[in-house]
């Protein structure tokens, strides 16, 4: 059930707020209207706008999966006006949710393939639904390698799930940080060099990456060196956006809109875009 006005958010309740890192919180949201909630379906890679009424709304990749039927989760890093306001909220607060918007990771096409998840910082958040889906339907997919990198150990998102991921069948979790601390015994390396060191095989594989532009840039170079073709490398883009509908004309890259033609693009599609960011 869609509202007639696509700029009108669904009133929603903040059910739970979980600290993921010093500046990232996981927001568990539930749409208030039971009929709308029932019909609210979404796929890995899609995003929603979340409103802090009186401050504004911003787009966030959904980190939960619809098949768990447990609302909508988004991981929000406190970085601007809206995200600061959202971080001030307490459970029970009323927020707005619009969406879901955008295309999604075509997971059906990845069935039987090895999947490499390469996420940096908060850019890891929209990749989490892929991991959840692969682990929920483990036999449908090949090996899963998860590379999660951050500036420091405390900035790694979804730490409570690391043990579960690492213990899952055919699954390998590689954590890496730019700078460690006294308790950190793991890797201290930039994500692109981890990609290179692991010698990920492009054979029957898909690499999905998201993170800061500079990380994606060098990760792409390493993946290509390993023999990945551009149609085997998938990313999800971010853009300034105000509507999610291809109308505000803020998030265009050439003649495509991140909000409705994306946010998920293969490198093959990106290399054909008129504008290169």
């Amino acid at each position, binding site marked *: 059930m869609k509202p007639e006005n696509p700029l009108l958010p669904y009133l929603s309740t903040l059910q739970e707020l979980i600290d993921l890192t010093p500046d990232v919180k996981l927001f568990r949201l539930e749409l208030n209207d039971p009929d709308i909630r029932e019909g609210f379906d979404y796929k890995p890679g899609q995003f929603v706008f979340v409103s802090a*009424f009186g401050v504004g709304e911003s787009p966030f990749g959904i980190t939960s999966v619809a098949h768990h039927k447990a609302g909508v989760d988004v991981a929000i890093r406190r970085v601007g006006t809206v995200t600061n306001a959202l971080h001030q909220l307490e459970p029970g607060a009323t927020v707005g949710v619009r969406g879901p918007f955008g295309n999604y990771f075509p997971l059906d096409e990845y069935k039987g393939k090895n999947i490499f998840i390469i996420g940096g910082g908060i850019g890891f958040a929209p990749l989490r639904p892929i991991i959840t889906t692969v682990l929920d339907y483990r036999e449908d997919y090949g090996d899963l390698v998860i590379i999660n990198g951050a500036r420091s150990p405390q900035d790694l998102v979804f730490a409570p799930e690391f043990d579960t991921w690492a213990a899952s069948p055919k699954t390998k979790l590689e954590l890496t940080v730019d700078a460690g601390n006294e308790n950190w015994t793991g890797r201290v390396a930039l994500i692109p060099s981890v990609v290179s060191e692991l010698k990920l095989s492009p054979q029957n594989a898909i690499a999905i990456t998201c993170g800061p532009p500079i990380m994606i840039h060098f990760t792409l170079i390493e993946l290509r060196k390993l023999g990945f073709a551009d149609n085997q490398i998938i990313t999800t883009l971010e853009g300034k956006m105000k*509507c999610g509908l291809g109308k505000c*004309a803020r998030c265009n890259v050439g003649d495509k809109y991140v909000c409705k033609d994306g946010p998920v693009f293969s490198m093959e599609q990106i290399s054909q875009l008129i504008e290169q960011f």
Partner: protein
Amino acid sequence: MSEFISKKDLLTWLGQLMEERNLVAPTRVDDLLLFSKIDQVEDIVFDFDNTTLSPKEWFYPSSETLFYVEQKDGQTELIPAVIEKETAIFGIRPCDAQGMAMNDFPFLEEPADDLYRQHRDKTALIGLACITACPECFCSSMGSGPHDPANVDILLTEVADGYIAQVLTDKGKALLPDNLLTTADVSSPPAPVLSEVPSDGIAEKMRQAFDEPFWDRLADRCIHCNICSYVCPTCYCFDVRDYTDKERIERVRSWESCQSPGFTRIAGGHDPRSTKGSRLRQRFSHKLLYFPRQFGALGCIGCGRCVRACPVNIDIREIIQDVQQLEVKSEA
């Protein structure tokens, strides 16, 4: 024979329209010519080339509340804005009417923009064909023309003592009382001859010129004042913000320009279009390359307003010409 309305009958009719709905028409405001809501028909300006600002304000206001947020006793309610009253716009030029039709592509594409659709549905267009033209006009090169009836409900063409009336849509028919129009043996005056701008094949040439240093050179003198977007009938980029006034919160949409520094800057500071050249290229690429690819029509309607308004003489007609020639050079 043509359908005809005398000047006197026209004024009487406009007076009637004003009683039953909003009547919007060209008026003089200081030294500007603007579409304004009319309280007395004597304020309407009939003798003009084109208005300083386009009529897009009446479909897509420079600032407009999308909805109100009411919070009472711990309950939150969203109250969407509703356009109650019908409007008739008198004196819209064929180029501007085409501009509104161009804006329909993004705004009415499903899921349609609710407020824009309400404005559009409730507004009738009484066009005035152009008898003279501004030196900067080039609508006939951009898919329209001084007498183009395509995008108005009624088109009036001035002749001696009155106007030839073409009633083009049911919406237009509904505006007219019975027996208002008479027939007269008058013929339409010739359309003014406009300068030609070589727009044929411009989308493909824009694609080829995309990575040329041309854009950075051109943008050197741009002071990103945004006036081009402000006066343009087809610039439709917007911003959305919340405003809090005492107890009431409003979510407001307002015009924004791709020429603004920070137009594409995202939280965290990354800005994919951080140079003036890339922003200037965006404006012309949107109109002459992306819009044609997305919707099959040029996103510029040749009204010439940006040419008149630009303080540093950035001229879309010259740009189209130059871009057409850039390719000629690279082939040579």
